[in-house]
C-alpha cells in the first residue's frame, strides 16, 4: 500500500459543512415544523492523490456530504474550498467551468446509465456538454480509448446498457467519469451493488486509474473491508457527524471511537474458525432519527461506554494521537 501521505498539498477542504432539509406542514401557509440535519457540521481535508474513505450506515449523511461537495446540493452552511476557491460562493457559470475537474461514479450501474442511449453516446455526453472535444471523429476515438482504458471492448460503443452485465455497466460509468480528464472523483458506493467476484475487478480498476491518471478519490461506502483495502485515510460518520478520522491502518488496527469499534465488530469474517472463536454481541438499538437527534453525543443512547455527561456535551473531534482524530469524551 501507498505510504500515508503527509505534507501533500490539499485538493479539497470542507469547513463546517451543514445541510438540513426543512419539514413543512400546512397547505396554504407552509411553515417549517422541523428539520432533518443530514450533515451537521463536518470538517474534512482531502489531499491530492489520496483516497479518503467516508464510511457509515444508511442515513449517516455520507452521500449528502458527497453531493454537497460537488454542489449537486446547496449546503445550508459551510465552505467547500477546492484548490482554495470556495465552490459554494461561485455563480452557476463559474461552477460549470470548474465541473470537468471533479466527477462522480454512482452506486447503481442500472439506473445511472440512460437506457435509451448507446454506450458511445453515454461516454461522449460529458465531452459534448463541456465542448471539450468538438471534433466528432476525435471524440469517437476518445470514447473508444476510454472503453479500452476501463477494460472494455472498444466495439461496445454501439451497444445499449441492457446488453451489459453489472460489472461492465459500472465500467461504463467509470469511463464516463474519466471522459473529462478529472482530477478528483467521488465514488459513491461505486462497488456496493456488484457481486463479489466482479467487485474485486472494479476495485483493482479504480486503483489502476488512480495511479495512471493521478486521481484523488473520495470513496463513500459502507463496506469496511473494501474501504480498508482502497483508502489511505478513513473518516467514520454517524448521524451527520464525523466521529473518527485517521490513517487507514491506524483506524482499523486501533479503532478508538466506540461506534467505530461496534461497526468493525459487526462485520463477519469469512472464516468459520475465526467466527467460532469470537465472542460477539451486536450493539443494541438502531440509528436514531436525524429529525430529533439525541442531545450531546449523538451515539450516547447506544454507546457501551457512555457516561452521564455524554447526553449533555457534544464532543468535538480531538487529535488523540498524531493524525488520529476522535470525537468522544471518554477516549483518552
Amino acid at each position: 500500500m501507498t505510504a500515508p501521505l503527509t505534507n501533500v498539498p490539499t485538493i479539497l477542504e470542507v469547513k463546517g459543512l451543514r445541510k438540513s432539509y426543512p419539514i413543512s406542514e400546512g397547505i396554504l401557509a407552509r411553515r417549517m415544523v422541523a428539520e432533518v440535519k443530514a450533515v451537521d457540521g463536518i470538517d474534512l481535508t482531502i489531499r491530492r492523490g489520496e483516497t479518503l474513505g467516508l464510511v457509515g450506515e444508511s442515513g449517516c449523511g455520507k452521500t449528502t456530504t458527497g453531493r454537497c461537495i460537488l454542489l449537486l446540493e446547496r449546503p445550508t452552511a459551510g465552505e467547500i474550498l477546492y484548490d482554495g476557491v470556495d465552490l459554494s460562493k461561485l455563480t452557476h457559470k463559474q461552477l460549470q467551468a470548474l465541473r470537468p475537474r471533479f466527477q462522480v461514479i454512482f452506486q447503481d450501474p442500472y439506473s445511472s446509465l440512460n437506457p435509451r442511449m448507446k454506450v458511445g453516446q453515454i461516454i461522449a455526453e460529458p465531452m459534448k456538454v463541456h465542448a471539450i472535444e468538438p471534433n466528432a471523429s476525435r471524440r469517437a476515438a476518445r470514447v473508444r480509448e476510454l472503453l479500452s482504458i476501463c477494460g472494455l471492448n472498444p466495439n461496445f460503443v454501439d451497444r445499449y446498457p441492457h446488453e451489459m452485465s453489472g460489472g461492465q455497466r459500472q465500467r461504463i460509468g467509470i469511463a464516463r467519469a474519466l471522459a473529462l480528464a478529472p482530477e478528483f472523483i467521488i465514488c459513491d458506493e461505486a462497488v456496493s451493488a456488484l457481486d463479489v467476484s466482479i467487485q474485486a475487478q472494479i476495485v483493482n480498476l479504480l486503483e489502476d486509474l488512480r495511479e495512471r491518471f493521478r486521481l484523488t478519490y473520495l470513496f463513500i461506502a459502507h463496506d469496511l473491508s473494501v474501504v480498508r483495502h482502497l483508502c489511505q485515510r478513513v473518516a467514520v460518520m454517524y448521524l451527520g457527524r464525523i466521529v473518527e478520522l485517521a490513517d487507514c491502518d491506524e483506524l482499523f488496527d486501533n479503532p478508538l471511537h466506540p461506534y467505530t469499534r461496534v461497526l468493525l465488530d459487526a462485520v463477519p469474517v469469512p472464516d468459520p474458525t475465526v467466527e467460532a472463536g469470537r465472542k460477539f454481541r451486536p450493539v443494541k438499538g438502531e440509528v436514531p432519527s436525524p429529525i430529533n437527534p439525541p442531545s450531546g453525543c449523538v451515539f450516547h443512547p447506544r454507546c457501551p461506554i457512555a457516561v452521564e455527561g455524554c447526553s449533555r456535551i457534544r464532543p468535538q473531534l480531538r487529535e488523540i494521537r498524531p493524525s488520529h482524530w476522535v470525537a468522544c469524551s471518554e477516549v483518552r
Partner: protein
Amino acid sequence: MVPLLQVKDLHTEFRTGAGVVRAVDGVSYAVEQGETVAIVGESGSGKSVSALSILRLISEPPGRITRGEILFLGRDLMALSDEEMRKVRGGDIGMVFQEPMTSLNPVLTIGRQITETIEQHRQTDRAAAHKRAVELLGLVGIADPARRLKQYPHQLSGGMRQRVMVAIAIACDPKLIIADEPTTALDVTIQAQILELMNGLRRQLNVALIIITHNLGVVARYAKRVNVMYAGRIVESGPAAAIYHNPCHPYTIALLRSVPRLDRPRQARLDPVDGQPPDLTRLDQGCAFRPRCRFAVDACANVRPPLHSVGCADHLSACLRGDEIRTVSGPAA
C-alpha cells in the same frame, strides 16, 4: 433418521425472449432438523429460485419446475394440492425475504399481518391470535408490542420490519425457515442483530434454517453446512470448515480469494474472478465455470461434471480436478 428436508434433482426453468433459462439445473441437498444450511452464490446462480421452488412459489408462466422431488418430513411437496401447499407455507415452513418493505402489506397493520397468518393456520379466534402476536413481537425483541401492533410497516425502521417478518415466519411453530438474503438490505449493525436473533430462535425453537446469501462472512458465522451454487448447479457442498479451509472447486477458491478480509493484513492487490458471469441462455455441455477457471483443461469442455465426494464423504465437488485441487488448496493460510 430421515432428514427434515430433502431436495432431489430439482430443475426449474424460465422461458424468456432470449431462450430457456435453466435457473436451477439439477440441485440436490438435505437439511437436518435444527441445523443451519447456507446456499451461497452470486446473482443469477439460482440460489433464490431454488428456495422459491421448495415453496412452489415460481410463477407459471414464465417459470416452471420441470423435474425433481422435494421431500419434507418424507412427504413430497410437489405432489400436494395447492390447498395443501398453502398450509405448508407459513405453517411448517416459514419464510423471510430480503426486502421487508415489499414483503409486508403497506395498507395492513403489523398486528393484522401477524394474526392473519395465525388465523390461516390455526383454529383460533381473534383474541387468541392477538395474544399470540404480542408474544411473538416480544420473542423477536420488539419493545412495546401493543403499540407496535397498531402501526403500519412504513412507521417502522428497516430492522424493525425484518423483525416483524421473523415474527410472522415463526408464528405457527415451523420446523424450517427459509431466509432469502434476510439482511442484505440492512446496515451492518442491524444485520448483526437480525442474524443473532434468527440464530437464537433457531436454537430456542429447534427450527432448521436455510439461509440464502452472497455474504461469505455471514455464512462463516452461522452455517453448519454450505452449498455453493454457480449457473444453476451446486458446485461444491460440505461442512462449513471444509468449504472455507479446504475448498475443492475452483469457483469456491476464486470466490474466497476475491474478498478483502478485515482479519488479515492488507493485500497489495485483490485477486478477482476474471471474466463475466455466464449467460444462462447460452450454456454448452461443458462446465459453466470453465471460461473463468484457472484450472480448466480440455476435458472441461465436454461435460458438466456431477458432484462427487472429495476427501470425506460429505464434502462434494463438481470439478473434474476436484481431488487434485483438494491437495493443493490445503488448509487456507
